[in-house]
């Protein structure tokens, strides 16, 4: 459009928010509008699921672990009836549909670390993750790289996250390939005597709950892995 013989008012034209709409976005809009038009779901349902997905995160899972560390009865409940314990930290696994989310199911299991066993989770088939209590999965968790390698070289992968386990500690990899979703309950670290629940919850990061990191006093953010520069960079 180069001519200006049309009659719209340029002072009232809103600048586009993005330079280009991707193919993915075009298809997303087409699919969503068709589904709504055909009654497969409603615009209201779409909004409800989006809002559900926006409010999930790792905080309830961290609170659950912190409470289990200070309350042995709650810890026993968490290991015996994980979905009942989830409710105590504000997560009802039957939300948002009344039968759970369609892709996360309602078979939650908490894997307890011991001095002899360290747990770490993966979904080698795709990216299954306990989203209702842990939020959305990290990007690296969904990569073919992590999925292919963790089941076979767990110690090497963990060492890339900065977690080197002694040989006396068995690695237990849990592949979540069916309806169960898993979360790790790490051991309470040293240097946290007398801490209250909220202090403890701060050091239980998402990465600790997946099993690629251990909680540590003073560390309240996820692992940052430094990538090596390419040996033969492409100019």
């Amino acid at each position: 459009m180069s001519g200006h013989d049309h009659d719209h008012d340029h002072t009232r034209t809103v600048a586009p928010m993005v330079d280009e709409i991707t193919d993915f976005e075009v298809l997303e809009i087409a699919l969503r509008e068709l589904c709504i038009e055909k009654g497969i779901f409603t615009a209201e349902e779409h909004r409800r699921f989006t809002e559900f997905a926006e409010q999930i995160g790792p905080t309830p899972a961290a609170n659950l672990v912190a409470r289990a560390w200070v309350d042995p009865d709650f810890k026993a409940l968490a290991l015996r009836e994980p979905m009942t314990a989830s409710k105590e930290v504000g997560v009802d696994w039957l939300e948002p549909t009344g039968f759970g989310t369609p892709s996360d199911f309602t078979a939650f299991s908490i894997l307890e670390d011991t001095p002899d066993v360290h747990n770490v989770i993966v979904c080698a088939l795709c990216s299954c993750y306990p989203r209702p209590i842990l939020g959305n999965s990290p990007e690296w968790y969904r990569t073919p790289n992590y999925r292919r390698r963790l089941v076979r070289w767990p110690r090497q992968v963990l060492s890339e996250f900065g977690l080197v386990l002694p040989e006396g500690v068995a690695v237990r990899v849990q592949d979540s390939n069916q309806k169960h979703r898993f979360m790790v309950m790490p051991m309470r670290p040293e240097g946290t005597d007398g801490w209250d629940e909220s202090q403890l919850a701060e050091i239980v990061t998402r990465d600790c709950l997946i099993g690629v990191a251990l909680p540590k006093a003073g560390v309240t953010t996820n692992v940052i892995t430094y990538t090596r520069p390419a040996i033969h960079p492409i100019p």
Partner: protein
Amino acid sequence: GSAVKRNTHHIHAVGKGDPQIFAGKAGEARFKVGDPVLVRELPALFYTRTPEYVRGAVGEIAALAYESPAPEDETWDRQDAKPEWFYVVKFDMATLWDDYTGPDNDVLRTEIPERWLVPAT
């Protein structure tokens, strides 16, 4: 979405959850915790959720997981498929990977429906 025919079984699960909706429908479990099992080499044309890396391997039942139709049926929406028991099966890493470099007590656990398992001798 509630008027969509293929959502019917989800609506039935309201208040119960999935896989709880299938509880009690698989009959007696063939295996118990501690049983050694061999993963069968079933054909996996078009769909399966039993990983290739455990096929033909011997593991041990670590837990009875739940009852559910197998994913090979559920993925094609075969609503008349009989639910079966799922098991958490534990494998020694060294039995899965010839060149496993970690210590002998490293393990991998994964879930497998009953049809894929036979007793190991």
